[in-house]
Each structure stands twice: as C-alpha cells, then as structure tokens.
C-alpha cells in the first residue's frame, strides 16, 4: 500500500480490509511493534504517527496508526489493560471509557479522532492516594460482579451516566448500562452496586 492510499484511509477501506482478512477482524488494530524490522513496516497500513493523548489527566505521547482503535492504543501502547476487549464490535461494552465525560466503546473509536479530548479509563477513577471512586467503592461494599471481565465497562458507563442523571431509578440505570453485557448474568447484584454508587456520589 502506498503512502498516498494511506492518506486516504477511510472507515470504508478499513472495514473492507477487515473483511478481506476473513475471521481475523480484530487484527487490523494491532500495530504493537515488539520487534522493529529494520525500520520498515511489516505489513500494509502499519505506518505510525506520533500524537499526544490526554489519558487519565496525563499527556501521553504515542505512535498511532491511522486505523488503530482506542482500545488497542490503551491496552497495547499505554499499558492500560484495565480496559477489556470482549467483542471488538460494539456489542458488549467491556471496552467502555469516558471521552469528555461521555461513555464510549473504545473498540470502535479510532485513536486519531480523540486528539485533545479527555479520556478516562478504569485506571483513572481512583484518587492519587488510592481512595476509590464512589462507584468503585460501592462495588467493593456490595461484592458486585463475579468474573469481573465486564466490570471496567459497567463502571465507566455508570460513572458517565451519573454525570447527566445523578439520581436515577433502578430502571433508568438499567437502561443506561444496557449496552454492557455480563455473561455471569449478575445484573441484579451489579445494579444494586451501581445504585449504591449513585448514592455514595450524591453524599460525597
């Protein structure tokens, strides 16, 4: 692939490339350079560009490919593995992060599109001294979640939603996090924990 075509990389081409790769859908986001190959890109499209991201209150400089998703940048370049990838296709919500306080599926956000935006991940919720965010504290209080692979996504979706509705009913909160899937199906205990989180936030 030539540099010219790369400049014109579009969502459509990105998806076409993914389809061409068959079942290897999530690979297109992988540019993790573990072994440099004498300076040359190993495969088409793997040209990176340096950019600055605002993540958890810090300015992080990182090399990013055009078609790289935020989930991959966070997990494989910034070491923030708390953000989980459950489906890589906006179905499960495990990868939810806040972008300017709005919950977003980071598997479906291109990293280059969030330059200058405020990104918060699960690692950025607790205070510097380790004091947990009220929603995190509520999970601890209620022993919410089981395997917890979905937990970062649920917590981020809840924290984001509570910014716009600090006093939700249980039903409203269920709707707010209905884009997040829990296969332990521990929804009852999750909702109890999240409702307590809302209460702790109101008290704080």
């Amino acid at each position, binding site marked *: 692939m030539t540099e010219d075509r790369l400049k014109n990389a579009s969502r459509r081409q990105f998806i076409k490339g993914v389809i061409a790769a*068959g079942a*290897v859908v999530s690979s297109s986001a992988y*540019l993790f350079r573990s072994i440099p190959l004498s300076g040359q890109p190993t*495969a088409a499209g793997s040209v990176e560009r340096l950019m600055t991201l605002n993540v958890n209150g810090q300015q992080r400089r990182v090399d990013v490919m055009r078609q790289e998703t935020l989930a991959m940048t966070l997990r494989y370049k910034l070491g923030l593995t708390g953000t989980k990838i459950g489906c890589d296709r906006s179905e499960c919500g495990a990868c939810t992060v806040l972008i300017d306080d709005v919950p977003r599926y980071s598997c479906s956000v291109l990293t280059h599109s969030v330059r200058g935006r405020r990104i918060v991940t699960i690692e950025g919720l607790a205070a510097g001294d380790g004091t947990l965010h009220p929603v995190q504290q509520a999970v601890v209080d209620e022993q919410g979640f089981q*395997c917890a692979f*979905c937990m970062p996504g649920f917590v981020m979706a809840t924290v984001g939603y509570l910014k716009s509705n600090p006093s939700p009913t249980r039903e409203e909160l269920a709707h707010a996090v209905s884009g997040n899937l829990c296969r332990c199906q521990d929804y009852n205990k999750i909702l109890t924990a999240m409702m307590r989180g809302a209460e702790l936030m109101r008290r704080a």
Partner: protein
Amino acid sequence: MAEHKYIGQNYTTPDLVAKVTGRAKYAEDFRAEGMLFTKLLLSPMPHARVIRIDTSAAQAMPGVKAILTVDDMPEPADSVDDAGRVIRANTRAERALTNEPLYEGEPILAVAAVDEFTAAEAIEKIQIEFEPLPFAVDPLVSLRPGGPTARTDGNVWFRPPTPPAQPGQPPPPQPPIDVKDLKWTEEQFAEAEAGRLPMGEVLADQWEYGDLDAGFTQAALVLDETYVTSNTSNQPMETRTAMAYWQNGKVYVHCSTQSTVQTVAGISRWLGVPQTDVVVISEYTGGGFGSKITSAISLVIPALLSKKANAPVMMRITREEEQYIGRARPSLHARIKAGFSKDGRLLALDFFGLSESGPYEGGNDHNATGRIVSLLYQPVAMRFRGMGVMTNTPPRGPQRSPGGAQGVAVMEPVMSIAADRLGIDQVAIRRINAPEGKAPFNGPNPQGVRPHVTSAFVKEALDKGKALFRWEARKARGGTRVGSKAYGLGVAVAAYSGGSVGFDGLFVIKPDGKVYIQSGIGNLGTESVSDVHRVVAEVLDVPWEKCEITWGSTSKHLPWTCVSGGSQTAHAMTRAAYATAMDARTKLQEIAARTLGGSPASYRVAGERVAGPGGSLTLAQAAQKAIELGGKYDGHEAPETVNVFTKRSVAALAGQGLLAVARDVYPRDGVTHSYTIGFAEVEVDVETGHYRVLDYLAVADVGTVLHPRSLGGQLLGGSLQGIGHAMGQKWVYDQQYGVPLAKRFYQTRPATILDAPVHMEWAAVDIADPETPVGVRGVGEPPVGAGWAAVANAVADAVGHDVFRRFPVTGDMILTSLANGRRVTDPLTANI
C-alpha cells in the same frame, strides 16, 4: 461447628479491589519481551479435506516467524485412570488444528508473526485448497436412511465392550472409542410427521428400573410429549486467549482457565511434556461456565508456536473465533412418556433423549439428563434411553448443569401439564414427587443397586419458596388477562451434582503470626478461590485479616485441588480446608504440650493463641517453635496420604513456619447433589408475543451457606443464564450450506440487563449436608434449569401449554400459535 464467625458471613474478597481498579490481570493482560502474535486460518466449510497447502509466500514475508499445522501437533496420547487402568486414546480426538475440518471455523493452521497485522496478511498469502465433503447440521437428518454423516466413517460414538479380566492378570485396557454410521428406518421416521420424536435404535446409553408397564397400566393420566432445546454457546466475556513461552525446558502458559492446578495435567497431555515442566499462570479468569474447566485445547497452539519460533507467543481469540472453538451446550431432542396417578405421583417414566453432540467427543449431555430427571421426580419406574448424534457444528462441552438443565427444561413442562390436567397445584405436584433424604437416582449399578444422594431438602425449599413468593396469593392472577397482557406463574425444581471428595489443603502459619493459605482453585468469579478458606479462619479462630491467600500460578506451591467445574469446589475444598485446619490445630496442641507441658488434648486453639494448663503460646511463637522442631511441624516431612503434587509444594514451603497439610479423607455416604427451586411470574403481551419476567425467586438447597452474597450471585446469575435459554438464546444454521448464521452476541442473544426480571430475590434453606464436615455443597449448576423452566412454565400458565414444544420460546412462536389457534412451529428441525 455450631457458632459461626466467618461461615455464612459476607466479606470483601481479596481480589475485588484489583478487579475494580483495572489492575487485575487476565490472560491477555500479560506481556513478555519479544512477544509474537498469532492468527488462525479457519475452515470456510462445514466438512472438507485439505488437499493442498502452500505456505511459501507467507513464510517469505518479513516478520513471519513460524507456521504451525496439524503435522506439528502431538498425537492423542493414552492416559491412565486412578485404578491404574490404561485409557486408550481416541484417535479421532480434537487436536486444535486439522487437515479434515469438521465444522465451519475449525482452525487449520496458525501463523506467528511480529504483530497481528503481519500474521493476518500472512494468512491471506497462504494458498489452500479444500475438497468439500458431505455434512450434517441436524441430528435427525443424519439418522434418516441415506442421510449425511458428520464424519466420513459415521455419526455416533460407541465404545466396544472391554474384554473381561483373566484370573491373575491385570485388567485389560478399555478399547478406544469408535464411530458407527447409524440410520433409523423410514417407518420409525413416520412419527416425525406428527411432530413426535422418532425412537429408533440407540447404541449404548440405556437403563431401567421398576415395572414400567405396570406403572402405565395403573396411571390415571399418560402423557407423550416431544420437546427440543437449542444449542447454546458458553460465550464467556473473556475469550480463550493464551500466551506461552519456554524457559529452561519448562513451558509457561498464561491462560484463561477455571481450574489452576488441574489445568497442568491437561496441558501436559496435550503438549506431550511432563507435568513437572508445565507452569500455569491464571490469576483472573473472565468466566467459563464449563467451557474452560481445564482451560482449552487451543492453547497448545501458542505453546507450540513459541517452541518453533523460540519466542513468547500471544494468541488473541476474537469473539467470532470464540463462537467457533469456545464450546457450547448440546441441544436435546426429548420424547417423554409419563404416567401419573390421579393424585399426581409419577408412576412410570419412559425417557428418550438425543444430544446433538458436534463432531468430537464431549457432547453427551443426555446421560446427566437421565440421572437428574430420575432424581428430581423420583419416578416409581423408569426407563432411560439416550444417544449423542454428531453434526458438523462447533464442538460441545460442559455448560453449567450440562444435561441437567436440558432435562429440567423438557421435563418441567410435562409436570405442569400433568398438574393442570389432574387439577393439582403446581407446587404440590413437585412436592409429591420430590426427592427426600438419601434419595436414589439413575439406574442400578452392576451390583443391581441404585446410587443415592447425600441429602435432599427439596420439600423444605418448596415450602420456603411458596411462602416467600406468596404463591397462594398470586395464584389468582395466573392465567388472567388485563387488556393485551396475560399473566402466568411458574415453578420448577432443578438439581445437579454438588461436590467431590479427596483433595488436599495447605497453609503455613509463619512467625509473623499470619496464616498463609495456598489456594489451587481457579479464580473464575465464583469466589470459591477464597470462600472455602474462611473455614480455616473459623476452625482456628484467627481473624480473617490475618489470613493471606496465594493463588494464580502453579509455580507458587499449591496443593492438589479439584477442578472448578460441576459445582465441586465449595464442597470438596471446604472439606480439604477443614482437614488442614484440624491438622494445624493438632500440631499447635502438640507444640504447646511439648513446650509448656501437659497433654496435647488439654490445649485449646482460639484467639490467635494455643492455651492450656501450662500457659499459652501465640500463633507467632508456635510457628517459631515449629521451625525449631522441624519434621512434620514445618513441612520437612509430608504425610503419605497427600497427592504428589502437594508433596512437591510442601517440600518447597518447608521451614517457613507451622505447615499444615492434609487430604480430605472424611467418609461420605452417597453422591453429593444440590438443588434449586425457581419461581417466576411473567407478563405476556398477546398482541406482540413479547413477554417479560416480573418477579423471580430462587430458593437453594445447597447445604450450609458459606458466603451469602456470592451464593446470591450464583443463584440469580445462574437462573438468568437459564432464563436466557427460555427467552432467546440459540444457534441458527443454514441447512443448505451448513454454516452458522448466528455468530455474535446480537444474534445468539444471551440475556441483557433489560431481559432480567424486574425483581429478583434469592433464599436458602441453609440446612447442613450431613455427609460433609462443614455442611457446604456446591451451588453453580442447578439454578440454570430452575430459571429456564420456571419462566417457561409461567409462559405456559399465561398463554397455554400448547404454545411451544421447543426452546427458546420466542415472541413470534407465541404470536403465531395464538393467531392460528394451534402450535405452528416446526418442532423437530435443529438450529432454526
């Protein structure tokens, strides 16, 4: 253990803060220097033979480090059972890669490269030619005369009989499992036209007890019903990603497994390396529900690629790949003939069930179905016949209450129909037939005796649930309509095995006065990894804050531990924890007597001290004394009874303090089973077919309650997994091309938070199982069937029994049945 300080109390598990802050590391969160990435080439066809592979262009790409095919895979190896008998390997066993793919999506080869992008491009450059072969994606189609078979040599497994042992000779090895092409006759299939499951020849799995004919003759009501359940994927949130590397001859595998210690043997067997050369690292596992009991065979791919490339290899598994290789619950086609007395007793049950078992071993759930049905309804006479039929669909494996949940789902509607026909209350008919005490189950063993359970308090659970759910008060609304809304009530009983025996515990009381507990249990979200060790704090009367738990890596000197599957752990490992705590108590008493004088029995362990006539020692002082005494006290000697795996760990930990180690050798009369009763109320919109669960209650008979919040999570989470089976979860296959049409969450439809009942509650009878020292039984399995069937029964109560004969019960099924005044769903075709 009358007074409980820790058992039955809530607490914060030691893994929770790491989970909620994102610090918890699952398999894909580990990194290794120079780590390569993997992509798989998957079969595009349901059944084919690879006739040519040319990897030269891929090999030539910069960045491609190794390519793995089935030629690199170890042959399936024989194994030896506990009795020393050789189990001959199944030569047709799954090997992670193949040149004869048996389902769309089966991995054929794998590429390791410097990044996934390169690996994916290398896959594209591989030239591969397939010869398509006949395939089957419906078990009944495969059984028809002239029907296709999933394997070139047949469609059903069978095991040839083992030749009898000669006097004075060791028992001969069991012959390897074999495959046969089984077809039923057109005459037998004539029944299918009427929507009844044909009942042709089954090869092996059958038993019976009692006088079936007499039962049917005496019966006041005889029902003959066919029900079909769907295949459902386990689909844990974390796919079965794995990362592996080799160091000093040992293979280190970071994987997603339900069972830390027991995974070592699996990897050893699959890779053909000694168990002592396998290190399993699994600190957090993102669910498995039976699909990762000893991890997954696919992890041999990164392990072997790592060996070939001489570098660490990560294999990320995508959601679609997980759908292919991630295991699923087999569907059950069931034909049930049941005879009831006029007061509701089940006099005779003739149960016939077919599992759709996929192309490999592992889908024969129907055997557990027979066991659970015979236990739950205690039929006076019963015949069971069952068989697995292979199809070219992804491999099956256990899923939470394997076979039990399907059995409950198909049997419960029959109980409901009988109650309504006989004019008996739904709770009452289940109580009349409920197992009690040391209830028998299954057919007779070779000695002619039916096995029995350790205990059953199902009647108590039914009574408790009936009161809590306000069953009598609600009954008036069942079957009524308000506008377009029809209301229905349902109850269902469910059971499954609830614990094994014979495992080891291990901990060290160190001179800092703390108790360092080694846990070989997988951390898969059930919390048993720490819950069972509450027993240690309870018995020794040590503050829980002074107990530290080590888990997550077999390099950390863990004791021999059961698999976390089949609800074994809470039972098996509380027994081991109790035995080990008693060992510590005995050692503390002996150390005190030796140091302070008097007899060991005159010393008491409590309040972080061992005290008696000669004074007292703190645990810290006793630990120091243990080191000075050496021998068994600090682990320089290990008891003969414990497993060799435990002995290695004891040797590694020796000399650090008072070392407690023991095997659970407590007697047990019966086979441990647990029970859950589900109660549900639904509201069905008869104009749209949509329904929702208004209220749900699960009542558990699982012995002594160990950790209430964890138990509640298991009961309601498991119930909702079952409710998902009732409401929406299924596979869909294109019957003409044999390829799946439902591959992603939004197509296979596991329950979302909006499908969850508006209100959910749980309760437990909290009666100790008499056959285990702590009284605890397992809980994970039975809630699934309870939730599934309670909701199905409630839907039937709202809109009639004849609306459905297959699962899931979807809105369109309800709507078309109501609109036509009769059931219009094709009852028998699979995967539609």
